[in-house]
C-alpha cells in the first residue's frame, strides 16, 4: 500500500521511508554503509514469509487428519503467554511448553523479535497496511499502549485463578481459531465449487481429477468443515485487521497480551539498536519505525552553537518494549556512527506509556472481577445438556484450566463435530470444544483431537483407550423415534452403533397392528446406558428431520456408562 507523503511537516515523526534525501548515499567520506542492514532487513522479511508459510502449512497439517503432523501445534509451544497462563492455571509443569523458554531466552537477547520476525498475526498485520495509518496514528494517544499490559495482567491473574477464558486474546489462538472456523471452511467451499464447475467442461475436468487424486484426504479435507459462529469469529479478526486503519500494527502496539509479556522481558534486552554520539537528531529512524518505538529527545542540552550539540542524555532512544526488531531504523539512519546494533547491559528506557501501579491495579481488578463474575455463572450449577466434551476431557474443572481455546481439536476433527462453545459451559468456557453430534459424531476410529491439543486439555489417548472413554450417553426420545412414535420400521441407530456389544438393543421384532389396521414387523430401539460411550453417531445418523430422536447428553464420568435410562 502506498504511503502518504508528509514532507511538508518539518517535525513530522513519520515521513515516507526510503524517501529521496533520507539516505545521503555518496556524500563523500561520510558515506554510510547500509547494505548490511538492508540484507538483515531482507533476511527478516524472508523469515516472516517462511514462518507464515509454515504456520499455514501446519494449519493444513492438522486438518481432518487421523494422523496429524506431530508438530502441528509448534507455534503454541513456543508461545510464552500460552505457556505461562496454562501452567499457572493448571498448576503444573507442562513439558510441551518447555519450548516457550527458548522464546523467553531469545527475547532477553533480541527483544520482541517474535513480534517482528515470527508471529503470524504480526506478520499478517504488517502486510495489511492502510494509507490512513500514517496520518491517524499521531492522533492515537500513546497512553493506549498501556492497554496491552492491562490485558496481559488480566490474562495472567485470571489464569492464576485457574481460568483461561481471556486466553482467547492470545494472538496464535486468535489466528488459529479464525482460520479453523472461517478461513479454511471458506477456502474449501471455494475449491469445491470450482471443482464442481470445472468438472462440467472436458479440458478442466482432467485437472480437477488430478487435484482430487493428489490432494483429497491430505491437503483438502474429506468433508466440508462447518462451524457455528464462523461469521462472528471472522468479524473479530477482521476488526483486528481494520484497526490497522488507525495505526500500523495497531493490535501489536496497543492490545496484544503476548506482545506485552515479551515487551516486559525486552526491557532487559541485551542486543539491540543503539544510538551513538554521531546522532544529530534528524529523526530518520523515528520516521522509519512502523511501531513508533523510537523517542527523540527534543531539547538539545548544552553545546557550542557552532558545533554539534553535546546532549547529556541520548538524543534518541529505542523503546525496547515496543521495538519489534524489524531493523528498519538501522537501514534508515543516514549518519555513520549514529546508530549501531550492539551489546548493552543497560535496561531499555522507561517510556511515559509504560505500565505503572495504576495498570497493575486495573488489571488486577479486571482479573478478579472476571473471576468472580464467571464464578457465579449458571453453568457451574446446571450442566448444560449440550456439554459433551471431547474424549478424556470429562473433568470440566481440569479441562477449563488447560484449554487454550485454540481450536486445533476442532480443525482436526474428521466429522467437524467438535464446535466452539458459546453457552454450553458459560462465558467461562467460551470457544472451548464441545461435540455437536447432530453436526458430526466422535469417530470410533479416531483419536486425533488428543494428539493435536497443545496443553493436554484433551489427553493423548491410543485409539483403543479412547474407545473406552465415556463422553456422554444416548437418550431416545420416544415421542419422535420412528418405531416408537410412528410405528415405522427403522434401526439406523442400532446398525451405526460402533461398540462391540451394541449399546442399542432392538429386543426382537414384533408384529404390530397400526391404527389403520395395517400390520408390520417392528423393532423398537432402547439404549443400554452401561455400554454407551456417547460417540453420537446414532444422533448424527437418525433419519428424523430436525433434532434427532436419539440425543447424546453429558454423563457423569464417575458412573460407568453415564446415567441409567428407563
Amino acid at each position, binding site marked *: 500500500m502506498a504511503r502518504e507523503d508528509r514532507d511538508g511537516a518539518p517535525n513530522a515523526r513519520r515521513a515516507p521511508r526510503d524517501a529521496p534525501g533520507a539516505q545521503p548515499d555518496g556524500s563523500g567520506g561520510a558515506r554510510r554503509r547500509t547494505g548490511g542492514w538492508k540484507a538483515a532487513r531482507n533476511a527478516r522479511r524472508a523469515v516472516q514469509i517462511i514462518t507464515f508459510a509454515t504456520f499455514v502449512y501446519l494449519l493444513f497439517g492438522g486438518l481432518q487428519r*487421523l494422523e496429524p503432523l506431530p508438530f502441528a501445534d509448534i507455534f503454541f509451544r513456543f508461545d510464552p503467554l500460552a505457556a505461562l497462563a496454562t501452567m499457572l492455571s493448571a498448576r503444573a509443569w507442562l513439558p510441551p511448553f518447555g519450548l516457550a523458554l527458548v522464546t523467553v531466552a531469545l527475547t532477553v537477547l533480541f527483544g520482541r523479535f517474535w513480534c517482528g520476525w515470527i508471529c503470524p498475526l504480526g506478520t499478517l498485520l504488517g502486510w495489511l497496511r492502510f494509507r490512513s495509518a500514517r496520518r491517524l496514528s499521531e492522533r492515537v494517544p500513546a497512553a493506549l499502549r498501556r492497554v496491552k499490559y492491562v490485558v496481559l495482567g488480566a490474562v495472567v491473574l485470571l489464569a492464576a485463578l485457574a481460568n483461561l477464558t481471556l486466553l482467547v486474546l492470545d494472538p496464535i489462538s486468535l489466528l488459529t481459531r479464525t482460520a479453523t472456523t472461517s478461513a479454511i471452511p471458506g477456502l474449501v467451499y471455494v475449491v469445491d465449487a470450482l471443482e464442481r464447475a470445472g*468438472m462440467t467442461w472436458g479440458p478442466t475436468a482432467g485437472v480437477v481429477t488430478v487435484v*482430487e487424486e493428489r490432494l483429497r*484426504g491430505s491437503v483438502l479435507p474429506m468433508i466440508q468443515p462447518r462451524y457455528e459462529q464462523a461469521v462472528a469469529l471472522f468479524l473479530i479478526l477482521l476488526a483486528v485487521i481494520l484497526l490497522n486503519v488507525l495505526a500500523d500494527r495497531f493490535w501489536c502496539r496497543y492490545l496484544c497480551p503476548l506482545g506485552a509479556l515479551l515487551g516486559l522481558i525486552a526491557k532487559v534486552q541485551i542486543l539491540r539498536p543503539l544510538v551513538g554520539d554521531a546522532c544529530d537528531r534528524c529523526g530518520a529512524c523515528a520516521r522509519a519505525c512502523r511501531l513508533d518505538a523510537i523517542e527523540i529527545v527534543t531539547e538539545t542540552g548544552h553545546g557550542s552553537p557552532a558545533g554539534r550539540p553535546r546532549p547529556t542524555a541520548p538524543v534518541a532512544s529505542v523503546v525496547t518494549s515496543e521495538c519489534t526488531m524489524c531493523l528498519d531504523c538501522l537501514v534508515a539512519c543516514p549518519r555513520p556512527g549514529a546508530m549501531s546494533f550492539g551489546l548493552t547491559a543497560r535496561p531499555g528506557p522507561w517510556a511515559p506509556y509504560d505500565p505503572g501501579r495504576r495498570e497493575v491495579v486495573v488489571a488486577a481488578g479486571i482479573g478478579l472481577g472476571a473471576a468472580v463474575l464467571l464464578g457465579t455463572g449458571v453453568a457451574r450449577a446446571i450442566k448444560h445438556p449440550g456439554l459433551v466434551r471431547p474424549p478424556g476431557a470429562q473433568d470440566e474443572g481440569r479441562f477449563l484450566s488447560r484449554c487454550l481455546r485454540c481450536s486445533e481439536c476442532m480443525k482436526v476433527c474428521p466429522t467437524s463435530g467438535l464446535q466452539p462453545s458459546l453457552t454450553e459451559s458459560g462465558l467461562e468456557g467460551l470457544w472451548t470444544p464441545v461435540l455437536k453430534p447432530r453436526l458430526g459424531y466422535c469417530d*470410533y476410529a479416531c483419536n486425533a483431537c488428543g494428539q493435536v491439543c497443545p496443553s493436554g486439555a484433551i489427553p493423548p489417548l491410543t485409539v483403543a483407550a479412547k474407545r473406552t472413554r465415556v463422553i456422554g450417553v444416548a437418550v431416545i426420545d420416544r415421542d419422535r423415534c420412528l418405531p416408537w412414535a410412528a410405528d415405522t420400521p427403522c434401526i*439406523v441407530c442400532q446398525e451405526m452403533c*460402533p461398540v462391540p456389544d451394541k449399546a442399542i438393543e432392538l429386543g426382537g421384532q414384533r408384529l404390530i397392528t397400526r391404527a389403520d389396521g395395517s400390520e408390520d414387523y417392528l423393532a423398537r430401539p432402547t439404549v443400554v446406558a452401561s455400554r454407551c460411550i456417547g460417540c453420537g453417531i446414532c444422533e448424527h445418523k437418525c433419519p428424523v428431520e430436525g433434532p434427532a430422536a436419539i440425543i447424546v447428553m453429558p454423563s457423569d464420568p464417575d458412573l460407568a456408562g453415564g446415567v441409567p435410562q428407563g
Partner: protein
Amino acid sequence: MAREPLTRAEFLKILAAGAGGIVFLRGSEDALAAITGVDDDLDQAALDGDGSRAAGLPYMTVVHGTPIETNVRTAIAKLGGMRRFVSSGDDVIVKPNICAARASKYAATTNPAVVATLVRLARGAGARRVRVMDNPISTNPASAYKASGIKAAVEKAGGSMHIMSATRYKAYDIPGGKLRRHPIYRDMLECDTLINVPIAKQHGSTGLTLAGKNLMGCTSDRGRMHNLGLSRTIAELNAKLRPDLTVIDAVRILVANGPTGGSLADVRRKDIVIASRDWVAADAYATRLFGRKPGFVPYIAASAAMGLGKTDLSGLNIKKYEV
C-alpha cells in the same frame, strides 16, 4: 456398466479410447506380464479363462477353500477369466464394502485378500488403472481404508485407494420410476469396468446386505432411498450402475449386529467366494449361507422383478469348486 444412447461426442471418445487401447495393448502385453508376475497356470487361467468356452461358461462359480487368493483366482478363472471383463487400457473400479474402520476379522468389511486379488487380476488383464473406493457410513474413509487392511493390500497389488469426494457426485436419470433422478458418484458410471465386491452380512434394514445393497455406497443420498423404500430403490440404483462383475466375499460372514458388527462372536468362517455377472443370482445364492431363501431379502425379489437377474437358481449352470 450402464449404457445410454450414445451422443456423437461419446461415440468419438469411445473410438479414440479404442484406438488408444489397441496401441497400448500391442506395446505392453509383455511388459504387463512381467510386472504382474503371471507365470503359473492358474494365474493365466484367471486372466484368460480355463478354456471351457466351448462347453459354455458357468453362470456362477462358487469356490470353497483357502488360500483366499487361490480361491478368488479359481472363481474368476472358471467364470471365463478376468479378460472377459477387463480389456487392455480399461479404467477399472473395484467397489468393496468398507463401511467401518474395523479389521477384516470382524467381517464388517470385505476381505482385503479378495479385493487385492481382483486388483491384481484386473491389472494383469491390462487395466490402465484400478481404483478401489467406498463411502464409509460409520467413519471417515482414511480410517476405514487403513483399519480394514484393504489400503495396504490394494496398494501392494498395484491398485490405488480413492477417497470419494463430495464434489464428484452428479444427479443422473434412473430407470424404474421411483428414484427418477438421484446423485451417483460419476466415476462409477464413467469407468470402463465396475467390479462389485461385497461381503455377506446380516443387516437390520434389508435382512442381509450383499451385492445389491453394497452399491448404495455409490450415492451421496442414502436417506432418500430409505424414505422411498429400500427394496425398489436398490434395484433401480443397480439397474443404473449395472456392475460388470460381482464377487461376493463369504470368507467370513457376519450373522448378527450387521452391518458394522464389532464382535467376533457374530462372525462365521465360510471360506467361500461367489462370482457371477448376474449379481441378483449371486445374492440369491448367498442367502443360503445364512440358512435363508432369496425371499428373505426383499430387494433381491424387487431386482428380479425389474429384470436385473435371476432368483430361481434351479436351472442355472452353477459350478462349485474346492481348492
